[in-house]
């Protein structure tokens, strides 16, 4: 009897490279589907020997989609190592840059990467199921999406001199103040951006209503959740305490990010270069949790800005009193956060300290190690460095956002494959749904491949000895 393996490679419209292998059993049913993250880059080793102040420029090269996350997490680690808490205006400016990134990254994901599935359909012709197809189908909407991303990128450019890989945050603060003129320019684009985000929210809600079946059939499962929150358990993206909740929404832990090693450990599987983080006290895999927009919206009790908070309440009403478990609702959660980020830009720009030039603490009281944590668009990002007495790096540990979701993405791939591939007649749209299960998490495989990297998908058929019979790639 022939056992089949289906390989989808590469997974498209995600950041980085992945490969999925779906092993079929003798009865022609899915036995198990695996998500292989297929590249290793080695930042944790090759940063050894560098000076700590170089790290905010080296580590963003882990990921060009959310370079600001690494830039800021690295600078925060540098703050801890130099014993130099940034002055308040510097923290405001860093947070402002971070909000620009949340808007551009989330906005691009919703409209340009996931949008083709939602607006053109999972089963649309793969030749047009992309941003060009979207442009042809709805030029006005696509242009709005392009402008939303542009507004976010321009905030980064204004502060850091460039859109990708900015040079702005340094240990102890930032290297540039905001001018009154720049503040006005950012404000001028704010209302349009909020309007576009609200169009996106209307689209996802409408889509969710019409596709309730897909949403309920598509990778719904229990996990814990994690993310930064403030003292009232409201959503935080730049700074705060890490909170973990369980599958029923009960708080498991709330701790200072610098103590992460007491709560988080990583498991290694032989078939992936991406490790599997889990809540240490529960062990692996019982202690797996989700991060990113869905994780954060489940893990936060409220949002500090009014429009986003109103949406968060509607989101929570989808499963009253319990976490929302549907993988496809990552898209809704992502837009709620985008709305928060845009509203927060206004709060930050209205702060009386925002134009201050008191932006750098030059203290150099070198500590042997430091931890810097931030909520990247895709979830909690942890940088941890040890240094010698000259602040030269002796070791680096990175746990990236997409890593925390590794178990959930693997589970989603397996569950969607089982739900949609039920017989020998395998159609492209089914495989695209498997990819969409990954895409919903907006994985950043460049990030995960600081230690990891390529993520292709392939469906291969192998016999029971593992010999390849046939390989189906989508084309």
């Amino acid at each position, binding site marked *: 009897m022939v056992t089949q393996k289906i390989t989808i490679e590469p997974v498209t419209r995600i950041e980085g490279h992945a490969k999925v292998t779906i092993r079929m059993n003798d009865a022609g049913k899915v036995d198990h589907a695996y998500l292989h993250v297929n590249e290793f880059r080695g930042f944790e080793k090759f940063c050894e020997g560098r000076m700590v102040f170089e790290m905010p420029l080296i580590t963003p090269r882990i990921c060009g989609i959310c370079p600001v996350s690494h830039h800021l997490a690295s600078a925060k680690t540098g703050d801890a190592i130099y014993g130099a808490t940034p002055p308040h205006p510097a923290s405001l400016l860093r947070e402002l840059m971070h909000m620009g990134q949340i808007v551009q990254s989330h906005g691009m994901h919703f409209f340009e990467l996931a949008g083709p599935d939602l607006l053109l359909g999972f089963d649309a012709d793969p030749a047009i199921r992309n941003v060009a197809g979207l442009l042809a189908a709805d030029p006005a909407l696509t242009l709005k999406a392009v402008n939303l991303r542009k507004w976010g990128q321009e905030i980064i450019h204004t502060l850091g001199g460039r859109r990708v890989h900015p040079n702005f945050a340094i240990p102890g603060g930032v290297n540039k103040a905001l001018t009154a003129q720049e503040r006005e320019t950012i404000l001028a684009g704010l209302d349009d951006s909020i309007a576009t985000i609200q169009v996106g929210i209307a689209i996802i809600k409408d889509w969710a209503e019409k596709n309730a079946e897909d949403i309920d059939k598509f990778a719904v499962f229990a996990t814990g959740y994690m993310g930064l929150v403030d003292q009232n358990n409201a959503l935080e993206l730049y700074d705060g305490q890490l909170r973990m909740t369980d599958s029923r929404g009960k708080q498991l832990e709330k701790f200072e990010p610098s103590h992460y090693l007491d709560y988080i450990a990583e498991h290694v599987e032989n078939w992936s270069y991406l490790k599997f983080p889990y809540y240490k006290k529960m062990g692996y895999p019982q202690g797996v949790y989700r991060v990113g927009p869905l994780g954060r919206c489940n893990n936060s009790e409220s949002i500090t800005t009014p429009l986003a908070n109103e949406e968060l309440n509607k989101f929570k009403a989808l499963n009253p009193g319990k976490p929302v478990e549907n993988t496809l609702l990552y898209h809704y959660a992502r837009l709620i956060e985008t709305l928060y980020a845009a509203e927060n830009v206004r709060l930050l720009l209205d702060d009386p300290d925002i134009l201050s030039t008191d932006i750098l603490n030059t203290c150099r009281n070198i500590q042997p190690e430091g931890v810097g944590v931030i909520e990247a668009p895709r979830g909690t990002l942890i940088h941890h460095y040890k240094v010698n007495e000259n602040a030269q790096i002796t070791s680096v540990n990175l746990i990236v956002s997409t890593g925390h979701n590794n178990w959930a993405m693997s589970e989603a791939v397996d569950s969607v494959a089982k739900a949609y591939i039920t017989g020998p007649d395998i159609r492209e749209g089914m495989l695209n749904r498997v990819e969409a299960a990954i895409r919903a998490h907006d994985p950043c495989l460049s990030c995960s491949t600081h230690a990891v990297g*390529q993520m292709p998908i392939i469906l291969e058929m192998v016999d029971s000895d593992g010999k390849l019979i046939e390989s189906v790639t989508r084309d």
Partner: protein
Amino acid sequence: MGKPKVSSDWLAGCAGCHMSLLDMDERIATVLELADLRSTPITDLKEPDATGVDVGILEGAISNTYNEEVAQKMRQRCKILVALGDCAVFGGVPAMRNFFTIEESLRRAYVETESTDESGKIPDDPELAVPTKVRALQDVVPVDVFVPGCPPDADTIFYVLAELAQGRIPEVKGDKLHWH
């Protein structure tokens, strides 16, 4: 002649060069008018057309066996190959790994890191690509156009694509090498 076909892919890079390509903002519509976008990381075709494409663009260095395969396939199927960004042009930040052995780098990531539990081991499943020395694209396949920068400026990328789409080989020099 129809629109020239363009394919792109990423190797060991950070996606920043493709982001810079999107940073041309609304001019992306102009590029779509001039060129037929085939397989790319943001479209759903998985590899360059078997019948060939006019322009192939690769971001990132060569750091494993899978990168080599992708680069070779792109080279076979495209007429003009573009190395986009420092990683592809000379190895960039990923090439810092060459200061260590591959074994040292893998051991650090999968065994020695503070958060890795006792399951730590170096993954070596046959499905996974095997890491190699990090090289520039031209160390593996011949390259026709080099566009340095980390990432290159969106204006430069727009110029390069617009020239290629109109059948000219772009000259990347002077202002085009000035990225901020």
